[in-house]
């Protein structure tokens, strides 16, 4: 008998305090011991988590109107420019935008973290002035309490899988994958592997538009496929199927988030990014879904890429799995290379367990997607047309 469950049944069990919820790590020994069918019968939800740099992020902010009013045409928050081409007092603050006075050490991500932490942010805006919005400049301070909305809206988060970065050149390089030492002195990777949301539902059987998620410490939603979405099977390696290009666009109330789960990051020589904590609950509707959430680090492969090659297509140096990466040393072309994650596995685990606790308490119900994400995506290069 194959077990089938619905979202409604699972939510009923959550409300009654009867649901069985485990993390994507905890499910592994359960499936090993009991098998897929029995585990599917017993477990209702598996929680995932990730906490890493997600550059394609930012916040929509509405400041409220001053008197006399201004139609803000250029806006800076702590000297970081926010895009103001939206009505009068709405802006979009990008996480990677750099400060005009502090340069690379401070950026949009830091403004977002400071705002969440309740700090005062300096707002400067200029305008040409109109009959209805006569004011031409304003300088004041805002806090998360003083503004109308602060909405985190990230066009591309939670990358399904990501490269391992190495550097075969003779000089140290500074990249978004961290500092890479010459002669393959280190290897950096950035995925929570067996805990990662999109590696636990690689075919998007449950994750879709409308899915309620843990986002930066608050409840948020998946609103679309992420930009550069490419969900197709990439290739097979060591008998394993490799999915790599799934991404999510997510939204949530910044005011409810916590600096424990959303933090500014600065990569020397590259710039600023935002570390975001995301957790996605996966309802165990059937055994096929269970088969995917039981995935282990040793079954998930990723490609080693030479970042010293400054072109779009970079040379591949082979494939490696997350068990090898997490053990701290990999071997490339006969050389032992120490590995470093850029995404925090400890935090990913904390998020998966926090989400589990929230579901068990009945504070977090599962939302069935109102629409599936597309089956196919395109990853087009930008051509230079003259």
């Amino acid at each position: 008998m194959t077990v089938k469950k619905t979202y409604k049944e699972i939510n009923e069990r959550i409300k009654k305090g009867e649901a069985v919820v485990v993390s994507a790590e905890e499910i592994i020994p359960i499936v090993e011991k009991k098998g897929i069918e029995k585990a599917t019968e017993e477990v209702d939800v598996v929680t995932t988590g990730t906490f890493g740099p997600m550059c394609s992020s930012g916040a929509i902010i509405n400041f409220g109107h001053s008197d006399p009013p201004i139609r803000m045409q250029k806006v800076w928050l702590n000297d970081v420019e926010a895009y103001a081409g939206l009505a009068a007092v709405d802006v979009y603050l990008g996480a990677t935008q750099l400060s005009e006075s502090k340069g690379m050490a401070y950026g949009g991500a830091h403004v977002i973290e400071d705002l969440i932490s309740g700090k005062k942010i300096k707002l400067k805006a200029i305008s040409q002035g109109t009959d209805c919005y006569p004011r031409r400049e304003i300088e004041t301070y805002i806090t998360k309490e003083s503004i109308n909305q602060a909405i985190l809206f990230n066009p591309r988060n939670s990358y399904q899988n990501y490269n391992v970065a190495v550097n075969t050149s003779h000089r140290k390089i500074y990249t978004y994958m961290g500092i890479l030492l010459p002669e393959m002195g280190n290897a950096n990777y950035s995925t929570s592997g067996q805990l990662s949301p999109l590696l636990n539902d690689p075919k998007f059987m449950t994750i879709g538009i409308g899915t309620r998620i843990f986002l930066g410490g608050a409840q948020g939603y998946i609103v679309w496929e992420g930009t550069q979405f490419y969900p197709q099977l990439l290739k097979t390696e060591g008998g394993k199927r490799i999915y790599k290009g799934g991404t999510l666009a997510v939204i949530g109330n910044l005011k409810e988030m916590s600096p424990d789960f959303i933090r500014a990051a600065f990569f020397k020589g590259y710039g600023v990014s935002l570390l975001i904590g995301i957790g996605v609950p996966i309802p165990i509707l059937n055994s096929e879904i269970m088969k995917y959430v039981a995935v282990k680090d040793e079954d998930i492969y990723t490609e080693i890429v030479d970042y010293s090659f400054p072109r779009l297509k970079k040379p591949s140096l082979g494939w490696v799995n997350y068990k090898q990466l997490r053990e701290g040393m990999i071997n490339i072309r006969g050389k032992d290379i120490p590995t470093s994650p850029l995404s925090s596995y400890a935090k990913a685990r904390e998020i998966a367990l926090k989400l589990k606790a929230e579901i068990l308490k009945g504070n977090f119900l599962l939302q069935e997607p109102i629409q599936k994400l597309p089956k196919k995506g395109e990853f087009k290069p930008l051509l230079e047309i003259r």
Partner: protein
Amino acid sequence: MLKKKVIFTFSSENVEKPVTYQLIKKYDLWVNILQAKFKPNLGGKLVLELKGSKPQIKEGLDFVRQLGVKVEFLEQEVIWDEKKCVDCGACVAICSTGVISLDKITYKLKFDYEKCIVCGNCVEACPLGAIKVTF
């Protein structure tokens, strides 16, 4: 036998003193120079690993202090702000002497200060600015 890592800070007055020589010759200490930064006539810093008996190290360091050289122990020089840290691990592989590792069970960072030579790699690799080195 005791092992200690120390930082000597020299001023323009005592920069010419043959401190290392005396520590070896007079106090019979095993001396390993980890880092040295000097500007002629202005002063400088020396990071050393000293090996010897407890009284030997104490007497040797007393001698250095008497010359007006500031003596600090290395543990105090690498500051890891655990509150700022998110345990990502970006500092692990770049660490030149294996000081920093991720615990295999908790995946939280661990610092083995004994091995540190204050190279500063971790400082520039940390995306949170959670590690500081005063050397």
